[in-house]
């Protein structure tokens, strides 16, 4: 009984530490809010308002109508009208356009008499994906145009394609970014907070004192993490609140399940932070590992920006050891797709395993300091 109350004293002490540094506490609470609002509203996968250059060698009523069509769509903005194809390279190099469209001479004439018009699209391949998306939008506009020319003359034996977007009918980017940004925030905050604050005590020498106290080192280490567990959990609640009420991304599945799996993920990140703190002696090093070392891998291997199945085999294997991959899958499954425990139990087990692994390593590392 006495033992238990002692660990409460420890947890209480840690809380005091955290609450005393008002500015850190403010950053810790305000950051998720700012990031969710900023990225939730700003980020989008959509390629729109691309600047294009038009070289109209035909220059007749038909092509003027066609160019107007490009301008009318939300995807393009006709930024330059050129007379000479030699200027395209300069505009690409200056980064002023993404695409150049060349309408060959006699376009309307050929289209009307030979039923054959030619258009050339040149895209800036330095950003290959955006270039191919923009090209496909442009082709779609041209196909529409062609269909209108056809008018009543329907082509025989036509196959129509009905396309439906599951879970996210309007293809809102927030459906992808909310789980992604949430995963990143929790991962980095959890690992950074615990590792830096513990290494700070190491630097100042008070960690030695704590470990020399009659309390079991396991309890010392765990009680370090508990205030951050609660703070990070509070962050989850705030983030979900913003997602639902501000960004209009509803939680399709069980809120309870989402909160519980978040708690599990927070434990994983905190135990990773504990592990980092057990192998480093300086705050600068701890921060370097937990921020620069984690940010890019956590982002890239989560599958939120880059589909994991696109990666080379070796990278897919590496992605398995990155906790964000599993949590991102969980959030997406519960929040967006509305699935239950039966489809996420594997991910949960993996996270639990990771937590156990890092925790054991951290405690092992801290223990010998007593002898």
């Amino acid at each position: 009984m006495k033992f238990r109350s002692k660990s409460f004293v420890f947890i209480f002490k840690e809380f005091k530490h955290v609450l005393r540094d008002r500015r850190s506490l403010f950053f810790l609470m305000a950051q998720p809010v700012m990031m969710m609002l900023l990225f939730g509203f700003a980020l989008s996968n959509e390629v729109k308002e691309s600047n294009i250059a038009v070289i109209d060698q035909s220059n007749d009523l038909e092509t003027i109508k066609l160019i107007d069509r490009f301008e009318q769509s939300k995807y393009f903005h006709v930024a330059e009208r050129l007379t000479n194809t030699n200027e395209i390279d300069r505009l690409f190099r200056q980064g002023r356009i993404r695409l150049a469209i060349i309408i060959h001479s006699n376009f309307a004439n050929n289209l009307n008499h030979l039923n054959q018009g030619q258009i050339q699209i040149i895209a800036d391949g330095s950003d290959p994906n955006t270039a191919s998306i923009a090209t496909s939008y442009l082709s779609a506009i041209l196909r529409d145009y062609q269909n209108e020319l056809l008018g009543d003359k329907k082509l025989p034996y036509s196959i129509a394609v009905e396309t439906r977007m599951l879970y996210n009918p309007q293809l809102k980017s927030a459906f992808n970014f909310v789980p992604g940004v949430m995963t990143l925030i929790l991962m980095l905050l959890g690992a950074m907070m615990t590792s830096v604050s513990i290494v700070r005590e190491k630097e100042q020498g008070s960690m030695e004192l704590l470990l020399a106290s009659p309390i079991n080192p396991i309890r010392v280490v765990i009680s370090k993490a508990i205030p951050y567990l609660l703070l990070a959990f509070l962050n989850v609640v705030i983030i979900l609140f913003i997602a639902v009420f501000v960004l209009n991304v509803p939680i399709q599945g069980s809120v309870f399940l989402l909160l519980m799996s978040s708690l599990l993920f927070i434990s994983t990140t905190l135990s990773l932070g504990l592990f980092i703190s057990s192998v480093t002696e300086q705050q600068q090093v701890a921060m370097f590992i937990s921020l620069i070392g984690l940010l890019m891998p956590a982002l890239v291997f989560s599958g939120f920006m880059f589909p994991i199945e696109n990666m080379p085999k070796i990278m897919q294997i590496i992605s398995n050891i990155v906790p964000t991959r599993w949590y991102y899958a969980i959030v997406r499954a519960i929040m967006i797709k509305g699935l239950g425990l039966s489809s996420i139990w594997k991910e949960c087990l993996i996270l639990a395993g990771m937590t156990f692994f890092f925790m054991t390593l951290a405690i092992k590392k801290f223990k010998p300091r007593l002898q």
Partner: protein
Amino acid sequence: MRPSAFYIMRTILEKEFRQIFRNPTILRMIIVMPIFQLILIPLAADYEIKNINITIVDQDHSSYSRQLLHKIDASKYFIVRTLMPDFEHALNNVEQNVSDLILTIPNHFEQQLIRENKATLQVSADGVNGTKAGLGSAYLSMIINDFNREIRESLVQLPRRSDFPQVEIYSSLWYNPFVRYPLFMVPGILALLVTMVGALMCSLNIVHEKEIGTMEQLNVTPMKKYQFILGKLIPFWILGLLTITLGLVAGFLVYHIVSIGSLWTIYLFSAVYLFAALGVGLLLSTLVDNQLQATLFSFFIMMFFVMMGGLYTPLESMPHWAQILADGNPVSYFIRVLRAIIIKGSTLGDLWKDMRAMIIIAIVLNSLAILNYRKRMG
């Protein structure tokens, strides 16, 4: 006699360099970690959409549906994961993330197409990842269109000169005809890593002096504020240029990326940019009391740099207010500039607007930092 400014500067630089070299762990990390990431991450960060997993529900079992199936299977974009008897089973695949798209070929598809001159296919895409869903269904429509044309040609003898007006589209990709994604990612990631390392290490270094109290001691020496700041800037500026050099070498060795533009242009921009990046670190160090706060604050800044720097998502797709914010983001200029020089061979003349913006940002950030120092220490 007061020591000369030159002597003071030399002494400060000696102190800073000693402090950096005294600590091999940090030095190793500054150099090894960015290069390690630069080599690994572009391998994983392949944004090109390929290997789209598709589940096909064939309820028709006709020769046409089989033909279409083969066509999809043969295309380089799709992996036909499974054939399912009904939509519910197929949906299960999407739920488990096994499949990105479902194509449903309804009963009597072939019959309808021949008798009624038209038939419908259903495509359902997993809309959570918008890019993949959009591109995937676009590719699938392309294949179906192709298939449609083949069938039409086999059924009716179309006249040589088509009765229907057709617009032919030729498209080409300049600078990167083989669509090599690392060409796009490596310069972007290099820009980001240099910024992270420079800004972060610079701010942590100063905050560390604050924390252990040596800042106070420095303040009572005869050195001026600008000398103190230059003393902090110059070592990290040199380290930053070193990181860029190593990054370019790694990009060449691992990804065979050779800059089309001149190396001098790259270094000129890097030299100016590093002052802006280090300015972020300096300003940050004036705003915080300890390293924990510095960590938290820089996390926010780094996220802003990564997410709104144009590394993955095109800047012009963002709403107007966000684009204005991105205009103040030094990383967005550097990412753009590095890509333009390396991939397209842009010159200083092409990019002078970016240069001007970088200079302005560098001056503003560093002046703010110096002003803030004066206030806090005066």
